[in-house]
């Protein structure tokens, strides 16, 4: 995230069979200040998401769901965008199958996070069924922002625990307090959800390819929103990622005459930056 990580001390390389050439070897003894930074970031995310949990509780109660139904969603579904989508669809009078389908489509992105987290975290088989429940935008963003396995595992666990506890607690408070609060929109709470997504997205936009993907995804989502059922525009906007990769591939192939294939990903991005000037 800030690129200031201390290189892992290579005291006993032979004792570390995990040191695959694909990623940096997971350091066993990272400096404590690094741990504190990870925990601080993770708790920051957890507390901020707590706010949107309150917004969810209020929104769900406003849509006509009972307190038990609202809390069941946060406990069992535990992926915010899908919960908001389901509640919105039910409030609009959609049948349960259509409503669940929209929420499910939104949740499919968690499979992609899981794909990436599985490799990064190397979750032990026994822990997988539990860890899977915590794979959401926020835990993925925090874990993927770390530059070694130890920090990623710490970030995932602390973020997951903080978000799960606070999200469920604030969901309950929101559902109970919905009547007292009145119109949640008057309090601006409907801006909390997108602001969480924006704040998670910001640090990911480092290279030209990442920025191009974000812009294309926004254009696709906006264009599809008025014509497709809820959930589908976001899912189809994900096609921005392969589209940018395809364009990137063409550009790098034409530049391959000049540079070797060594350090592939980084040089491709450097070439793209150079091409912009």
């Amino acid at each position: 995230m800030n690129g200031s990580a201390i290189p892992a001390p290579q005291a006993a390389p032979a004792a570390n069979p995990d040191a695959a050439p694909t990623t940096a070897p997971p350091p066993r003894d990272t400096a404590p200040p690094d741990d504190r930074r990870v925990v601080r970031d993770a708790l920051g995310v957890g507390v901020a998401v707590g706010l949107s949990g309150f917004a969810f509780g209020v929104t769900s109660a406003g849509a006509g769901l009972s307190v038990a139904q609202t809390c069941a969603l946060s406990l069992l579904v535990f992926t915010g965008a899908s919960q908001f989508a389901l509640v919105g669809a039910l409030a609009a009078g959609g049948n349960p199958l259509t409503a669940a389908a929209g929420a499910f489509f939104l949740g499919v992105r968690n499979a992609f996070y899981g794909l990436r987290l599985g490799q990064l975290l190397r979750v032990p088989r026994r822990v997988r069924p539990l860890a899977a429940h915590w794979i959401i935008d926020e835990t993925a963003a925090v874990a993927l922002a770390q530059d070694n396995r130890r920090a990623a595992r710490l970030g995932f666990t602390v973020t997951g625990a903080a978000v799960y506890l606070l999200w469920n607690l604030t969901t309950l408070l929101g559902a109970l307090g919905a009547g007292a609060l009145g119109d949640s929109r008057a309090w601006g709470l409907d801006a909390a959800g997108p602001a969480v997504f924006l704040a998670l997205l910001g640090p990911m936009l480092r290279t030209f390819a990442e920025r191009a993907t974000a812009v294309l995804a926004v254009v696709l989502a906006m264009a599809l929103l008025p014509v497709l059922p809820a959930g589908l525009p976001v899912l189809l906007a994900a096609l921005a990622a392969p589209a940018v990769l395809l364009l990137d591939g063409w550009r790098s192939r034409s530049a391959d005459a000049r540079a070797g294939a060594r350090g592939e990903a980084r040089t491709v991005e450097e070439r793209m930056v150079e091409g912009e000037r």
Partner: protein
Amino acid sequence: MTVWIAIALTAVGCYLVKLLGLAVPAGVLERPLLRRLAVLLPVALLAALTAVQTFGTDHGSLALDARAAGLAAAAVALLLRAPFLVVIAVAVAVTAALRALGG
């Protein structure tokens, strides 16, 4: 009752896709192209979610309201490297303030 059915379907479906991603063998991601795709996919989804929840309405149409101003303020806070919680608070506060002023 139909609400509980929808909740159950969503809970089971969302959990299974989470588990599916985690259970896929690590070797699947060894190819550089797939690894880059896995990096770019969250970017695309988060960008789309931000846009849809900022400009979308309950009826599936687009609208420019106080949320957009709140998110613009949040973007400025983000560029100024404000902490995560401050970014969210700015978005909520600006949106609420504009609505209080009759937006």
